[in-house]
């Protein structure tokens, strides 16, 4: 019983605050690293060769995780003129069709990204400014699109079984 309670709390934490923390940390990281590069260049005539690169990679992680998070509140851009004119059943059917397509896309992205990561691992392709395998940067795609699948499944669950689910809202 206690183990189930702990697991439930852990899942809630991973599902909500942890993802939000990753988003905020990645955002703050590339902001601070770009800012520090500017200051270092002007006040100490020095800049790193890894700063810009890691800022870009942090942005890729941030962007895809934030894209998955946008599914929490159904915020992705769409033309909702026709769905709004349909009844509830029609709207649900269209939304489920869109979710199905998105899962297909996510699976394709994850499949080909994992394939590329395997090649990067085997060929030992490294980041140009750090002795780290490039697959760690590429991991942003399977991670972001994997989270996208989870968010879509939660959306489908909310649509057909609108019971309160372990779902931590954005703090805004």
């Amino acid at each position, binding site marked *: 019983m206690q183990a189930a309670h702990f697991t439930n709390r852990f899942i809630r934490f991973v599902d909500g605050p942890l993802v*939000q923390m990753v*988003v*905020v940390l990645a*955002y*703050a990281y*590339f*902001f601070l690293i*770009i*800012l520090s*590069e*500017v200051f270092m260049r*002007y006040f100490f005539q020095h800049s790193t060769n890894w700063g*810009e690169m890691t*800022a*870009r*990679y942090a*942005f*890729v992680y*941030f*962007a*895809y*995780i*934030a*894209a*998955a*998070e*946008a599914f929490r*509140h159904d*915020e*992705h*851009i*769409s*033309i*909702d*003129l*026709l*769905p709004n004119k349909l009844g509830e059943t029609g*709207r649900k059917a*269209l*939304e489920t*069709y*869109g979710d199905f*397509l*998105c899962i297909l*896309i996510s699976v*394709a*992205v994850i499949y*080909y*990204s994992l*394939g*590329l990561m395997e090649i990067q691992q085997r060929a030992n392709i490294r980041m140009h400014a750090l002795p780290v395998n490039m697959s760690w*940067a*590429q991991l*942003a*795609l399977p991670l972001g699109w994997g989270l996208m699948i989870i968010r879509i499944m939660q959306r489908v669950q909310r649509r057909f079984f609108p019971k309160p689910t372990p779902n931590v809202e*954005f*703090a*805004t």
Partner: protein
Amino acid sequence: MMDLTNMQVASVVIVLMLIHLVIGLPLFIVLAMGSISLIILTGAYSLSSLSTTLFASLDSWALLAMPLFILAGEIISRGRIARDLVGLGEALVGWIKGGLGMATIFGCFFFAGTSGSSSADTATIGKIMVPALKDRGYDKSYAASLAASGGILGVIVPPSLIFIIYGIATGTSVGDLFIAGVIPGLLIALGLCLANYIVCSFSSWGANERTPFSGAGALKAVWRARYGFGAPFVILGGIYGGFFTPTEAAAVAVFYVFVVELLIVREVEFSELGEIFLAASKTTGILAPIIAFSILFAEVLAILRVPGAIVEAFTSFGTGPYLSVVLIVAMLLLVGCLLEPIAAILVIMPILFPIGQQLGFDPVHFGVFVVATLSVGFITPPVGINLFAAAAVSGEPFMNIAYKAIPAFIALIVVCFVIAFSPSLILWFR
């Protein structure tokens, strides 16, 4: 023959994409399905490009400016800078008939110098000005329409999110686009002020609400708004002084507004920081997959030589430059009505940019013209985002605001034609 087949496949896929868009599927899913379908059906590209292109499209130094400008806008929309800039607008133009309406537009203009988003501009200035305009007797829906139309300046006056996206999509200098946006921004502000003046001349509210002009008052307002001028100074001065790139300018601008709002005027609390970062992350989360898949879509179209074929067809009509511009304006207005302008830029530029080049447009001039025209879509139903933002802050019905925005719509169309046929106004800095 092969080309013809590919063109036919592309035509069918594009029609299917439009159908999927109309039935309400998210735009990035439509772009993704279109790209993947074209790759599979034509065999002209490898599906493994999904992993490389989706990574490389966001692994862009220039694109990093986008989330940073969004962050700067999020901070100032919660702080004092916006109020001071509106106060400056009122001090400068409040003495003219319809002056408070013009102050709203100039408030949007000045605020646009720190924010790169039109909806942020509308919501922030609307929150301050709609109640004030209503108190002075303005029709509330009209007051909301002023904030909605003035909000368009958010994407014309630098920094502008749409210019960043256009720059990335077409390989045009973001710095040049920023500086080129200043005069069109001013033209749009003046056009909107003129429309407001005409409306107020035929209405009862405009004549009674003037604020007498005072030189001392104006100077005081300039002093109070001094922090608001810091951000555009840092951004444009930094880029054109050769101190930093647009992306670095965005980071310095965020630092500047953080210092002002957190440490100097102290309108934003440290405890709000997490919330600010999360709120700003939403916009990037919405735009990122659209950017990534539109770049993939553009690559596939380019391999299939679709844009070239469309340019050929367009030029074969033998329309002169004037009619061509009219056709482009009509198309952009239609697209702007249906799609959010940032998304629209990404979707249509692979096709429209070669047409612009064929017509002899400079890429920077064409960018300003296209962005200005598409931005009219911010105040047109059914997806006018500024109308939604204005409705949210004013509590007025969406369609009432859209109806009251018609004079602004007309003024904007006129200014778009002026922009299209006056390259020297846009490229003055060269």
